[in-house]
């Protein structure tokens, strides 16, 4: 033994460098045994080894943590590493597809998604990447794009100068020919309104007034211009020529008409004066107030005075009174005089005194006193002048003016107050005629203006040339038309002209602002109201046309916005008005697109707005559908087409939100974007649903058998899902569209048909999952095939195929997360399916992996066949374990918890529980299955080690006495292999391996024992095996491994027994018997009572009696005696075996005999010594004594005392007989056929068993 260990230890020291990471346990065991051999150095090393496993574990843990924290990152890291490894060229993701994306994005894209190992992905054309990360990237890209666009829109909406170039470019790509459409539109509107216009023209002709008369009137007005502002700036001649141009009058005619006009008497002009109010008048009365009134007259005619009413006791009177003063001579330097007076009523002195109490201040008192004095002296009263204002008529413009004038008083410097007056000219013309004249004039002049100045459509907003302006102002002034009347006239004329030449909508909204109030207050005469509504009717189609053509491309977005704003303002004004009865505001022949319902006159502006909006969207969409019709009739082509379409629609809605929605809501309280969305969602639904359902249904079912994926070639598998990517891109597009809707109209979105869009795709998803499994299996196979079984890098203990496999899982997960499947029930089922599939892939991977490493590490040469555990084996196991480890977090990432919570809400907690249960089961099942695969693989490894170990064990047992080194070799072999396993495997798997090793060792040894017992190997053979086993157990078995290996412990016992010398083996039998007998409570053979003690080096025994002895003789009794043996016999060979006398014919003999057995101290110290009381039945002849029974008393139970035996208690021992011939010890003895001792013992043993 010593030699053996010594040799081992020597070997260990020399081999130290090699097996740096030898086992703590083994080293410990060795150290304990052979402290002398262990140098301090090796202790240190052992300690460091002790620390190492923990470190390793932590490291792995960390890795996993990092990995879980940031999968993307991990993905990048791994992929880049692999790139380096394989030195493969980068795949640049489909360049053309991303050509429109700014380079930064593209660059980013590439970095985020570094191209993976080209070879694996090529297996299936990047199937998983397409659906996983590429898919996501694309989504992100679209989102970024959208965001950019949104920002752009926002910018534009904020009226910052937009960076329109790119925007338009983009738009142009999409809508290349919208421009042409706009012309079409223009003609359509005009044709719509042609009828109306013609009627108007006729109207014009039939009116009594002909153009010449009007022209003459204008000439006359030019001759008699009024106001300060005209004649000085624009000469009469200019005006004449302008009018002649505008009215297209020949020179002769002009001269003739001018002559006529000159001959006509100058017009009876009136000066209209409105005394509006005064402020801060000086007080004239004793009470600190005045009672002001105004007197007004023309300087040239100062006898003709006009007075206002008197406003009592105020310094800030308001009159608002109108006066018309005839002007005699327009060209004179005439002046309007305004005098403000304090009215003094006729009062007596007494009355004045009565006011004493109203007097304010000293000044007031003085005034009163003065007044009283005055009244008292001359008995009369006098109005007092407050102040005078003078207005030269030539300062008054033709269009009139409103001014504050300060009041002066002769020889007074201080201010007397201010007076507000409106002054204008007018003539005594018939209002109706004047209005009509004005309308015609406006029309002719405007047409002339438009013709000469060539203003673009929608641009003219009321700016006449100075000449035209002058003519019109003169007419208005000389006809005395009110601003409202003028506004109505303008509105009507402009609306009419608008039909043939579009004018700015701002013009109308400005006019309407002035008209609405008077209309509401019925301040406009009936005829004008009628005219107004007629004009409105003409104006509205173009308004709605603007709304309908809101998408029309213009060079200036801002202008469009402005236009829409004005249109909406117009609509809002009209909304505020009550439509007169029997007015059909929306004649059907013009509003063909209107969804007219009901019988009555259709005057629902709101509904019309909605119709216009929807019609606009519809026109736009039809236009797109017609012009962008997909040339590609394949599934992919059609799907791409729909994706683009939805993209466009989304952009449109997005734009409508950014630009117009607020405008519509604020101006006319109309939810523009929502209305659009409702229209679009229905449209998208009807377009896409049948198509998608159909494509999903026709997705080619994959025909494959999971077990033989190798038989499939890549070619036939490409087709079924070529439409897949586009299909799910469409899914995502629709999904985002729906999300948009949820935000836009949260109240209604539940009713939208599109809400259940996912159902269209249902079959597609199921199909995809089905195909994905196959693809995954295929890819895993390829990954395993390409795996070089080297660590991915130094920090991890798995190789490329594990990474590849996980990236497949990762992609599946990303795909699922992207889907964000809205329906709970199917989500749950899909998750179950995904988990089950992942499990299947994992198992498949495990199988592939073990198939790959099978055969590795086998060495064969002429002498032996040997198996070495290689790193490849360990990596394979680690790979599988790595995949297994990720299963659980993977399933968590699928969003199970969320789904279960939703089922609880939607269905019931019971249902949720069942679903949860199922998912848990599926996961547990998956993990379990993979774990079992690992165990299987570990078993394969260990079983591969078995033959070598077996051979070495046998060799060692046979040859150890001849100084063989086979035990060393065995230890080395096991050590090497276990070292590799320990270094490479994680703790869990290593412990599993150890368990399997012991199991295998137990089985192997048992086999060896059985086989060699038959060969009658000497006990030393087994003893050697036993020693070897103990050595191995001591060296390799971890003390904290508490799992019990029954096979091993049994084998160990067998070895121990068979390794014993026969004497020891016999004693072992006795010990076993003693143990068995002690367990018996009652015996059928009887009982004996004894007293036994040690005294010095002697055993003192007193055999007292026996009871209930079994009857041995035919007479039903027995003749018994007791013989005392001290065992083991070979150690007490010189000792007496005393016996009692025979007591005849009694089953209750009283022996009462004492014996002293002298033994040596050494013998006394024998630990497992036994005293055997053998009760026998004396045979008549004395030759063939029969055994009645036996009892054992172990030395350990015998007291050491000086007390006399009589004082000791009796010991009652049950008698027994050996029962078993099948115990291991007996069997071992039976195998020793050549051993006389064994043979004799067995013979006796059988006698002792009795008959």
């Amino acid at each position: 033994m010593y030699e053996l260990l010594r040799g081992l230890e020597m070997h260990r020291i020399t081999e130290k460098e090699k097996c740096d990471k030898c086992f703590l346990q083994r080293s410990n065991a060795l150290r304990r045994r052979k402290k002398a051999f262990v140098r301090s150095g090796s202790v240190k090393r052992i300690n460091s080894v002790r620390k190492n496993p923990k470190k390793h574990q932590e490291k792995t843990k960390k890795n996993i943590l990092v990995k879980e924290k940031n999968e993307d990152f991990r993905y990048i890291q791994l992929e880049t590493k692999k790139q380096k490894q394989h030195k493969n060229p980068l795949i640049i993701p489909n360049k053309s597809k991303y050509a429109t994306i700014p380079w930064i994005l593209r660059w980013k894209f590439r970095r985020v998604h570094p191209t993976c190992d080209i070879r694996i992905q090529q297996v299936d054309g990047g199937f998983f990447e397409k659906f996983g990360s590429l898919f996501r990237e694309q989504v992100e890209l679209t989102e970024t794009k959208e965001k950019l666009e949104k920002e752009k829109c926002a910018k534009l909406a904020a009226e910052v100068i937009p960076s329109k170039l790119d925007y338009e470019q983009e738009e142009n790509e999409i809508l290349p020919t919208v421009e042409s459409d706009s012309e079409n539109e223009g003609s359509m509107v005009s044709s719509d309104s042609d009828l109306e216009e013609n009627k108007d023209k006729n109207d014009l002709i039939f009116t009594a007034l002909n153009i010449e008369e009007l022209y003459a009137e204008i000439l006359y007005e030019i001759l008699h211009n009024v106001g300060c502002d005209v004649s000085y700036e624009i000469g009469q001649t200019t005006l004449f020529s302008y009018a002649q141009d505008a009215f297209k009058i020949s020179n002769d005619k002009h001269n003739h008409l001018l002559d006529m006009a000159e001959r006509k008497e100058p017009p009876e002009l009136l000066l209209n004066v409105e005394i509006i109010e005064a402020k801060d008048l000086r007080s004239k009365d004793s009470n600190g107030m005045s009672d002001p009134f105004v007197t007004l007259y023309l300087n040239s005619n100062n006898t003709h005075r006009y007075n206002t009413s008197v406003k009592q006791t105020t310094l800030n009177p308001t009159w608002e009174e109108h006066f018309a003063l005839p002007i005699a001579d327009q060209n004179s330097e005439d002046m309007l005089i305004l005098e403000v007076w304090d009215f003094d009523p006729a009062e007596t002195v007494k009355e004045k005194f009565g006011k004493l109490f109203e007097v304010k201040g000293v000044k007031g008192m003085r005034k009163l006193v003065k007044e009283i004095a005055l009244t008292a002296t001359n008995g009369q009263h006098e109005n007092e002048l407050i102040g005078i204002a003078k207005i030269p008529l030539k300062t008054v413009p033709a269009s009139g003016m409103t001014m504050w004038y300060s009041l002066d008083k002769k020889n007074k410097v201080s201010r007397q107050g201010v007076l507000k007056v409106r002054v204008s000219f007018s003539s005594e013309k018939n209002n109706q005629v004047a209005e009509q004249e004005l309308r015609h004039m406006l029309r002719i002049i405007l047409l002339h203006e438009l013709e000469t100045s060539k203003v673009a459509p929608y641009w003219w907003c009321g700016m006449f040339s100075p000449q035209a302006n002058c003519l019109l102002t003169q007419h208005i002034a000389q006809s005395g038309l009110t601003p409202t009347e003028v506004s109505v006239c303008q509105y009507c004329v402009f609306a009419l002209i608008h039909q043939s030449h579009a004018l700015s909508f701002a013009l109308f909204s400005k006019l309407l602002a002035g008209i609405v109030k008077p209309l509401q207050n019925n301040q406009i005469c009936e005829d004008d109201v009628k005219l107004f509504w007629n004009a409105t009717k003409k104006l509205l189609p173009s308004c709605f046309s603007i709304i309908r053509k809101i998408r029309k491309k213009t060079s200036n977005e801002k202008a469009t916005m402005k236009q829409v704003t004005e249109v909406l303002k117009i609509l809002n004004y009209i909304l505020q008005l009550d439509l007169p009865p029997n007015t059909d505001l929306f004649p059907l022949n013009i509003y063909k697109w209107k969804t007219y319902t009901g019988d009555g006159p259709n005057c629902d502006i709101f509904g019309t707005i909605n119709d216009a909006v929807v019609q606009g969207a519809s026109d736009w969409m039809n236009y797109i559908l017609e012009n962008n019709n997909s040339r590609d009739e394949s599934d992919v082509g059609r799907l791409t087409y729909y994706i683009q379409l939805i993209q466009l629609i989304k952009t449109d809605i997005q734009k409508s939100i950014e630009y117009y929605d607020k405008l519509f809501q604020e101006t006319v309280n109309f939810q523009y974007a929502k209305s659009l969305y409702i229209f679009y969602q229905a449209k998208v639904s009807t377009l896409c649903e049948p198509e998608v359902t159909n494509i999903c249904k026709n997705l080619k079912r994959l025909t494959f058998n999971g077990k033989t994926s190798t038989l499939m070639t890549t070619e036939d598998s490409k087709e079924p899902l070529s439409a897949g990517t586009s299909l799910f891109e469409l899914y995502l597009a629709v999904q985002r569209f729906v999300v948009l809707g949820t935000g836009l109209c949260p109240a209604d979105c539940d009713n939208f048909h599109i809400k259940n869009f996912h159902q269209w795709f249902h079959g597609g998803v199921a199909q995809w999952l089905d195909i994905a499994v196959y693809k995954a299996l295929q890819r895993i196979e390829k990954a395993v095939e390409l795996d070089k079984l080297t660590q991915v890098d130094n920090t991890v203990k798995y190789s490329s195929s594990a990474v590849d496999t996980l990236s497949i899982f990762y992609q599946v997960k990303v795909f699922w997360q992207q889907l964000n499947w809205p329906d709970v029930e199917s989500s749950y089922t899909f998750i179950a399916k995904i988990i089950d599939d992942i499990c299947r892939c994992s198992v498949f991977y495990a199988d592939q992996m073990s198939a790959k490493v099978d055969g590795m590490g086998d060495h064969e040469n002429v002498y032996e066949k040997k198996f070495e555990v290689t790193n490849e084996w360990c990596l394979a196991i680690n790979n599988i374990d790595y995949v297994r480890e990720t299963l659980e977090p993977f399933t968590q990432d699928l969003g199970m918890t969320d789904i279960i919570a939703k089922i609880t809400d939607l269905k019931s907690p019971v249902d949720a529980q069942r679903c949860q249960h199922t998912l848990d089961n599926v996961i547990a099942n998956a993990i379990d299955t993979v774990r079992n695969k690992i165990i299987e693989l570990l078993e394969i490894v260990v079983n591969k080690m078995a033959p070598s170990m077996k051979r070495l064990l046998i060799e060692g047992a046979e040859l150890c006495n001849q100084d063989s080194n086979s035990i060393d070799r065995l230890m080395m072999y096991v050590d090497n292999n276990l070292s590799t396993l320990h270094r490479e495997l994680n703790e869990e798997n290593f412990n599993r391996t150890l368990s399997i090793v012991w199991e295998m060792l137990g089985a192997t040894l048992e086999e060896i024992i059985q086989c060699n017992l038959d060969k009658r190997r000497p006990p030393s053979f087994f003893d050697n095996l036993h020693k070897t086993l103990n050595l191995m157990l001591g060296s390799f078995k971890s003390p904290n491994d508490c799992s019990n290996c029954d096979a091993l412990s049994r084998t160990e016992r067998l070895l121990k027994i068979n390794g014993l010398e026969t004497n020891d083996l016999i004693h072992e039998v006795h010990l076993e018997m003693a143990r068995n007998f002690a367990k018996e409570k009652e015996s059928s053979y009887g009982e004996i009572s004894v007293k036994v003690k040690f005294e010095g080096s002697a055993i003192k025994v007193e055999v007292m009696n026996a009871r209930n002895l079994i009857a041995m003789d035919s007479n039903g009794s027995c003749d018994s005696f007791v013989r005392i043996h001290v065992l083991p016999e070979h150690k007490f060979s010189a000792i007496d075996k005393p016996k009692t006398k025979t007591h005849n014919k009694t089953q209750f003999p009283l022996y009462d005999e004492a014996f002293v057995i002298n033994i040596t101290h050494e013998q006394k110290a024998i630990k497992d010594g036994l005293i055997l009381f053998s009760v026998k039945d004396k045979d008549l002849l004395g030759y063939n004594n029969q055994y009645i029974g036996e009892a054992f008393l172990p030395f350990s139970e015998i007291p050491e005392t000086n007390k006399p035996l009589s004082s000791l208690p009796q010991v009652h021992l049950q008698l027994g007989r050996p029962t078993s011939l099948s115990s291991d010890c007996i069997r071992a003895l039976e195998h020793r056929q050549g051993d006389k001792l064994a043979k004799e013992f067995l013979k006796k043993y059988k006698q002792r068993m009795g008959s």
Partner: protein
Amino acid sequence: MRSNHKNTLLKVVILGDGGVGKSCLMNRFVSNQFDEHSFHTIGVEFLNKDIDINGDTYTLQIWDTAGQERFKTLRTPFYRGSDICMLTYAINDKSSFKNLQMWKNEFLYYADIKENNQFPFIVIGNKSDITSEREVSQLELETWCNENGITSSIETSAKNASNVQEAFILAVEHWLRIEKRADKNETVYNDTVDLTKKQGEKSSCCIGSSDEN
């Protein structure tokens, strides 16, 4: 969950009309429970159960499907890779019996099985406890099975627990027969199990923690 990794794994799919008692059958078999008022199954349910036949242990991975039509797209993906298919009807529901054909076809289509006479189908007539309302006779069952080349059929009652164990045993035995035949015909590599490779009970080893000194 599964005690022994050397067990043969068998994927079992239970099909049949809604309400014939598929879930009850499975629950009776796996946990020996019966719920009179059980709900409709949502999509699929999954349970594991070990079963001993002729001294060998088989782990059945049972997928219980939802019979309602609206779950069709949800359940069909689970058919692929099945080892055993249980076609279930209720003896008091003629239409569920008539639909067996549909179920069989659906299964064959989605499980992607070529030679259907090679596949272990078993027909189960559930609710045998309510014989008073019987609409499908044993004879009809046999006739149908014969016509469809199905050799295994049994009437069960999940409520009384009658024949439930037997039904599953029958199914596995059927599978075994077909498997043996297949093995004889051609030596197909079977990736699920290798029965012959190792026997001997599992015992994770190791002797206590006694150190020899």
